[in-house]
């Protein structure tokens, strides 16, 4: 690998930028195109639910059940967990194989993961994930 000076650290993001632009252009373009070239006919049959879909009852804007909140919350907890796990996973292999630090680094991470597992077990035991 030739050593390349950090003239511009953003060049890597060019593909992402282009991807973002393409995504935005695709979405907006489709909307625009539909309104321009699509025929605009409305009718009772056309507004029906597709094939064997359920007929909607009531408003879509009603109050959610509170147990969804727990699901979102546990998702967030694991999300944060991953954020911390990632740097660890990058760092850990960079230690020398016989390094004295290795068991410490492993133990520190295991404690971190353990607390989350405890939280998960607790929530399970409490029936937080039970839907009935």
């Amino acid at each position, binding site marked *: 690998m030739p050593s390349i000076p950090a003239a511009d650290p953003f060049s890597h993001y060019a593909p992402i930028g282009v991807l973002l632009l393409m995504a935005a252009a695709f979405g907006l373009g489709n909307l625009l195109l539909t309104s321009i070239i699509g025929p605009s006919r409305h009718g009772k049959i056309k507004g029906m639910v597709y094939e064997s879909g359920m007929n909607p009852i009531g408003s879509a804007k009603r109050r959610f059940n509170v147990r969804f909140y727990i699901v979102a919350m546990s998702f967030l907890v694991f999300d944060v967990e991953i954020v911390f796990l990632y740097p660890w996973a990058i760092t850990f292999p*960079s230690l*020398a194989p016989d390094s004295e630090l290795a068991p410490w680094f492993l133990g520190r991470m295991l404690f971190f993961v353990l607390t989350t597992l405890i939280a998960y077990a607790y929530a399970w035991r409490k029936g937080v994930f039970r839907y009935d």
Partner: protein
Amino acid sequence: MNLASETRWEDLWGDLWMVMPEVWLVVAMCAVVLAPFIKRRSVALPLGVASAGLMLAVMAALSSFASADAMGTVFTGSLVIDPFSQFFKVLLTLFTLMILGLWILHSRSQTDPADAPDFLCLLLGAAVGMSLMVSATNLLVIFIATETASMPSYALAGFRKRRREGSEGSLKYVLFGSVSSAIMLYGMSLVYGAAGTLSIYGIAAQAAAGISPLMAIGLAAMLAGFAFKLSAVPMHFWCPDVFQGAPIEVTTFLSVASKGAAMCMLLRALAAFAAAAPANGYLFVGIGVAVGILGAVTATWGNLVALHQTNIKRLLAYSSISHAGYMLMAASVAVIAGRSWEGGQHQTGAIQVVVGAVLFYIVVYAFMNLGAFTAATLLAMHTGTEDIRGYAGLSRRSPWLAALMTACLLSLFGMPGLGGFWGKVFLMKSMALAGGAGFALIAVLLFNTLISLYYYLKPVYYMYFVPDEDERPAFLPAGGGLAMLVICVSVLLATGLLPNRIESLARGYATLYPNPVITAPPPLETTVSLLESAPAHD
């Protein structure tokens, strides 16, 4: 990155040994959460585990006084273990044990057995946060420890889900708390940007070289975060509602442990600044004056609003606001007198006097508040009212309870012969070190004490001088509660009668870890080369 010291095994284990109180608390917390797996719907099991963990933590904190090796910085300087922090940890864990007692007395019968582990886990979690707050010397640790103390407190404040006031108080607490931690975090980011270091000692050293406007704003925003935890005046609105709505053991815990931890954290930061103050650092005096004004306003406002309260919990809430104000006023002296005004000479002794006085005050305050809240709990249990007008004729109905509660209230006022009096005297003695500004603070403190006499005597007046019109029967309060009250009052009497001995004890514990010599952080290149010295495998 201190890799050289990290590779030594003894150091790694030694660091862990020095934070044993926290380790025990965390272990107990995890065990409490797992208790339902062993025995479902058991209260005794998690309660036993929590008490055992707390007792082990007390012993671990006490044992660190045994040898001088057990003091110092740990975990590459992000925590400090010194007599000051260990003393507070002993107090905190003992106090939490008493909160458990109060919970058994008051709430256990009303709590579903399946909810007991939740309560205990949250309580222990808050205790972990508070004990780390006292040891924290690093902005990151300060923030996360504060959050670890706050988050369970939000849930604890609304622990009785069916009570409307509880939910209201909890919601106000969460909203206020999250806004103020956001402000504090924002301030920390500015301070970090201005100083380039997270260590409070490093920041103090940078500030000694000159406080830039950015750092000044950051410090002010951080002070706002501290003010929330202390319920100092612009950030105090949550306090009465939370105290009124929360179960009484939670109220007691929040009013003492939470405020005490925040106070100790603030003291450590102020002492670090005071010790680093340059010969003519007038900006440093500015920091002290800001804290002093905050304290004076808090004390006065809390006392003035307390005059109108008729609910005992709200009254004690405003009283606790004003007590936080007194302690803030004294803490400001650490910076003002930490460097003498004219001579340019450091008065390092002044810091210790101030810290000792505040520590003494925290101890006394813990017991008089615990006593007052326990008495209010017993009264609420037996008379079914938290309104002080319902206390009419109590001296006839339950003379012991009335007498003990009166003692606690008078100690909160500062009656000579009780611990509260000496607490205030030592605060004033330390304020006198600051010269002219100190005398202004003393005047404010005396004025506030006079105001507070009215509302502390109001319940006493109802208990002793207003006859009970409904002729309600006499009652004997629950034995456990009475025992706790007796403990509190005897501590107050002991501190009231042997003030000098206990004050010298407190001053001995007020030994803070000295500011380390600040060396410039290694430039980034060295860090990188250290990293690269390890063979890469990815």
